[in-house]
């Protein structure tokens, strides 16, 4: 017999309900998003003008490091795990996740990981200051003592991700409603299934990298120290063998979200469903064999360099297929432009621009000039922010009525969209110019020829940061005072099992599996 949630704090501490856990993941990731965003504001404030005004270079490096780590591991990844928790059971007609207790554990260790990471800011010698890519030996021999806490934090995050992924794979493969064949699954489920496999494959590699660091720092080994027979470049190979799949781990679920929203508001089925699935799998496969394109300047042999260039260029093909499919879905649809659709369209445009710069970066000789400049910073913020963050925002607006039974304020949603869209471009488009003009990344201070665009970029960043507070306001306002909605199907063109349950979604859904024809 279904029963409601228990009362008080115990509901959240001991819950095994996928909806509760999804909610906690989403709130946690938003908190981390604000924290990482605060670090970004410090960075942009310091870079507003040439010269050191607010902080010292040493602290600047801590800010860039913490910004990257918190955003990647604390904000974006948990946000999509939260969406997976909420939506995968609803989309495949399952009563809950396959491993509910592990689900609770994989969430509740995360706050500890980030408490440990954030506490390093208050330690003697300061927080990690070697960039989110933590290249040895800067992160080993030359690291502040807090590096050990950083390593412990990464281990916990990795454990959390692996458990979450195992759970998703188990759920998708075992708990689909009768008739829900693999090739009938919504694309969000497909992209998450593939992402989960990527996570299970590469998180142990990251754990291995930080464990080798731990050994080098504390136990006298020399994995990454040439003086002891090791190799600093080995670190980069291991890191990017994790790191490149990692960026697809971030973006694939975003593809899934966009593939749900665009058909809804185009009132037309997704174009090329099966090619979308195959393209996702192809991108996932390619992600394992292109890692050294992050290392075109480390002095690889010519043949290695050529191989990684060719393999990287190939990624453009399946990625192009996805973009073409989304646009063909919109083509001859009957479109409306509610907030989730606006964010999704912006995603397609800006992600495509990020894809173009990615293609430019894949050309190894040109990459010699782009590498480690603001051109790269612009590129990955176009895919990380306008990609992952925009799609996450779109997803929240899209499913919020289903989650809480209240409708957000459309005007306020659109206002947030336009501020975010314009401010994002003011922030990051000029960074292409900065990079091409020769400004290296992770610079606490810069020469005078870079002053104008840095100021423009900083102004954009402050506005973009403010837009996130508007997002927070919109969500809270919706939950507290939004117009109640009760039809199962919030959006006219929406398809899928999640729109067959009551609104707001009851605490327990699909206790009896639905029949999928």
């Amino acid at each position, binding site marked *: 017999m279904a029963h409601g949630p228990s009362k008080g704090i115990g509901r959240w501490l001991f819950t095994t309900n996928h909806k509760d856990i999804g909610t906690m993941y989403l709130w946690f990731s938003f908190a981390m998003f604000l924290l990482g965003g605060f670090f970004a504001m410090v960075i942009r404030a310091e870079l507003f003008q*040439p*010269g*050191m005004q607010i902080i010292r*270079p*040493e602290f600047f*490096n801590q800010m860039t490091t913490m910004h990257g780590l918190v955003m990647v591991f604390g904000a974006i990844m948990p946000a999509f795990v939260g969406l997976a928790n909420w939506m995968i059971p609803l989309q495949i007609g399952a009563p809950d996740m396959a491993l509910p207790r592990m689900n609770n554990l994989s969430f509740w260790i995360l706050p500890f990981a980030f408490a440990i990471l954030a506490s390093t800011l208050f330690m*003697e*010698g*300061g927080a990690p*200051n*070697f960039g989110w890519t933590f*290249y040895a*030996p*800067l992160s080993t*021999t*030359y690291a502040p003592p807090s590096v050990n806490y950083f390593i412990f934090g990464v281990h916990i995050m990795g454990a959390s991700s692996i458990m979450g992924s195992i759970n998703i794979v188990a759920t998708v493969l075992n708990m689909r409603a009768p008739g829900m064949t693999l090739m009938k699954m919504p694309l969000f489920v497909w992209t998450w299934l593939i992402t989960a496999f990527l996570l299970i494959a590469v998180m142990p590699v990251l754990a291995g990298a930080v464990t080798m660091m731990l050994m080098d720092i504390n136990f006298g080994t020399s994995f990454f120290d*040439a003086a002891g027979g090791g190799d*600093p*470049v080995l670190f980069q190979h291991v890191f990017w063998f994790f790191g490149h799949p990692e960026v697809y781990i971030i973006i694939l679920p975003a593809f899934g979200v966009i593939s749900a929203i665009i058909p809804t508001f*185009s*009132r*037309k*089925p997704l*174009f*090329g469903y099966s*090619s979308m699935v195959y393209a996702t799998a192809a991108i996932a496969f390619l992600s394992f064999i292109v890692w050294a394109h992050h290392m075109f*300047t*480390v*002095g690889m042999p*010519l043949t290695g*360099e050529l191989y990684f*260039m060719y393999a990287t260029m*190939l990624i453009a*093909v399946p990625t*192009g*297929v996805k973009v073409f499919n989304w*646009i063909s879905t919109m*083509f001859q649809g*009957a*479109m*409306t432009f509610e907030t989730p659709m606006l964010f999704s*369209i912006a995603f397609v*445009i800006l992600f495509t621009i990020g894809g*173009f710069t990615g*293609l*430019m970066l894949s*050309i190894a*000789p*040109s990459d*010699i*000039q782009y*590498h*480690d*400049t603001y051109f790269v910073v612009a590129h990955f913020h176009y895919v990380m922010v306008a990609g992952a963050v925009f799609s996450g925002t779109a997803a929240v607006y899209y499913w919020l009525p289903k989650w809480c039974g209240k409708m957000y304020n459309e005007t306020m949603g659109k206002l947030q969209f336009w501020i975010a869209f314009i401010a994002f471009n003011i922030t990051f488009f000029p960074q292409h110019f900065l990079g091409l*003009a*020769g400004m290296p*990344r992770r*610079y606490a201070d810069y*020469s*005078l020829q870079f002053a104008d665009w840095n100021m423009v970029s900083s102004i954009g960043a402050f506005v973009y940061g403010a837009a996130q507070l508007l997002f927070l306001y919109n969500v809270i306002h919706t939950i507290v005072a939004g117009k109640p909605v009760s039809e199962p199907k919030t959006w006219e063109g929406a398809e899928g099992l999640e729109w067959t349950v009551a609104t707001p979604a009851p605490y327990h859904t699909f206790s009896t599996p639905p029949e999928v024809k």
Partner: protein
Amino acid sequence: MRPNVKQLFLRALALFMLSPLAFAAQAEAEGSSWLKGLNMTQGVTEVSRQIYDLHMLIFWVCVVIGVIVFAVMFYSMIVHRKSKGYKAANFHESTSVEIAWTVVPALILIVMAIPATSALINLYDTSEAELDIKVTGYQWKWQYEYLGEDVQFMSEIATPEAEIYNQEDKGEFYLAQVNNPLVIPVDTKVRFLITAKDVIHSWWMTDFGVKKDAIPGFINETWAKVEKTGVYRGYCTELCGQGHAFMPIVVNVVEKDEYAQWIADKKQAAAAMRELASKEFTMDELMERGEAVYNQSCASCHQANGEGIPGVFPAMKGGAITTGPVEGHLDIVVNGKGGTAMQAFGAQLSEVDLAAVITYERNAWGNNLGDVVQPVDVLTFKQGQ
């Protein structure tokens, strides 16, 4: 039919998004100067021009694809809207179209790969170099060694701290000026052998199309044959700690005969320095020279007032080593301390400078030990290890 506000807005937005391309195209055609600072520059070597051409080629490929894709998208967004009463079609696949947009991009990529490959092969061809220069990255400076010429020197940022911390107006080459620029001859194939002593750095000369990581324990090769004399400026491009933004690169490319004269002068200066090492200095001479060396090489960590940064960089003022036995002091300055930011200055500074800075550290900031370390003491210490 009167276009409504929304439509106008969308059209304006579409124009806005395409406008940078139009401007870029126009400026590219005119070679106008306002594009400076917006695009990559062509540089002054064959390699840098090849890179620039590849960059522009792939840029225009992206622009053309982008214009087509976004045109279709904006057309649909303007025409295929429910508010205009447009009824949705129901197609959702087309094998031939899907094959086409898989194959065509693949073909474009193959065409792109051809010039990229030949550029890369050229970029890797370090054979038949006429001059070999070893470049070593340190936290946070560069060392240049002319192999076979017995000439080596450190090259450090020359922008004063007062400019960085806004006590003085910033000069034209703020953070892009050094005390000793690298000097190379024009029209000469120079091979750079790049390595590092502590963490990974990266030696980037934009105008040469050269960027190579400097990795401790490994030596990377790259090359440049510069076609035009002049002063060129570059930066370190691998995060290397707090001074990452403060270790610029300046290369002075000169006529061949000017270079020959310069290298001869340098050799002579090196010989004179060796001679100087046997001279007896007075306390005042050493203190004066020592202060200059200290401010150049030590103050960025240990601070000009000798107080260091608590928890990170030890204080010199009243420090255990600076007020302890002179052997310990010599040892840490000459050999550095493994596993910390303290470098081995034995290979970076001359005996005279080492003696001066140690004397200075033992007698400045109230450390008044009164002992004088002579260059010959440093030499004896070095030989005795």
